[in-house]
């Protein structure tokens, strides 16, 4: 399965990706961005947007 992964050392938790995600799959949690596998379609918009380059699309 293809999934969104956040690099916690790069992510500043600004949570703008949450607003960009068309599927409301992302949530900001204490430890970083969490991705709901049920909702995520791996479109990669969050990765394209992230100001810190902290998000990648990976194969699980």
């Amino acid at each position, binding site marked *: 399965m293809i999934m969104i992964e956040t690099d916690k050392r790069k992510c*500043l938790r*600004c949570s*703008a990706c*949450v*607003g960009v995600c068309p599927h409301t799959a992302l949530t900001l949690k204490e430890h970083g961005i969490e991705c709901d596998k049920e909702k995520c379609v791996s479109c990669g918009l969050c990765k394209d*947007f992230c100001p810190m*380059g902290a998000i990648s699309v990976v194969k699980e």
Partner: protein
Amino acid sequence: MIDKEYDVIIVGAGPSGSGAAVAIAKTGAKVLVLEKRQEIGTPKRCGEGLGLSTMKRMGIEKDDSWVRRKIIGFTAYAPDGKFVRHDYKNGPEGYIIERKVFDKHLAEKAVETGARVISRAEVTRLLKENGKVCGVEVEINNKKEEIKGKIVIAADGIESKIAREAGINTTLKLSDVIAGAQFEMANIDIDSDRIEMYFGNEMAPGGYVWIFPKGEHTANVGVGVRKPYAKNSAIEYLKDFIEKRPGLRKGSILEVNCGGVPVGGLMKDMVTDNFMVVGDAAHHVNPIHGGGIGEAWVGGVVAGEVAAEAIKANNTSKKFLKKYNKLWWEKRGKKMKKLIKFREVMESFSDEEFNWMVDYLKGEDLVEFTRSSGFIKLVKILSKKPSLMKHIRKLM
């Protein structure tokens, strides 16, 4: 600690939430503001620029606790290094502020007016009754509580999820949102009295670089970029900009910030039964320079006033709350819609066209460009060069 019922629950204690809270609390209605952060305004997602005209619109007096630097003018750089400098005629026209202090100051205003503000209280979902919003579920100290509200206002910023839960689609298109990265830097060589902006498709595709001074040798140095123009993440453009400038390269980094700025995607409808959206969550940001503090507060106040009326009339239906749509569009929306068009034209300029324009621009013109009155001026300038005529058509 918190009551089980309020007239209005506001989600988010940024400027939009505090603006709405002040407007509602003034009327004696019972207001609760819930903020998920541990400290209001921290970490900042902001260049911290605030114009005097914006402060006037907000009805906020300058306070030494949050003013860092007076701004007497600006310099705008074209890609080839040519620039337009402008000093305001009647003294300083803006400040670089300390946002952390400022946002708290606004929240305090809400409290002084009678609102209740609770931080580290994250709204986890909306409560609904017969399909209509009737309150929120909030997590405080790892404990979930349900609180009823006749109206819920989403002032939860760019990440707004609860508006979507209420059925209002606030998802941003990538082309409508700036990705921003910023360092607050010290020990750098800057013009400490003016703000600086750098334009260019290589340097900051779809946006610009800003240097907003906070002290003699301290400033917010940031960049905003946008898809589809940007090929890299914002932070890479920022590092690149700094790396090329010895006066910045030697500096220290006091803080790293990033965030998204909505510069489009205005919504005709920002309400539903018992529910309203304000501020960044409703994409209320100046689409030219990305300033959103003032828009957030003013939009919050407009929404708050309508909410207060609704509470008084005991009618919080969508039909009643729609008055906010109408008032906001009259007051701010029309102007912003124009500015979005303007932005679309500006972003299609090639570097060469930018360079050329600088020769024809005066500082005052640039000031006008951030207001809708800049339209006529831009058309005049563009009509001087046949190859730029195509842009005029887009403005019409």
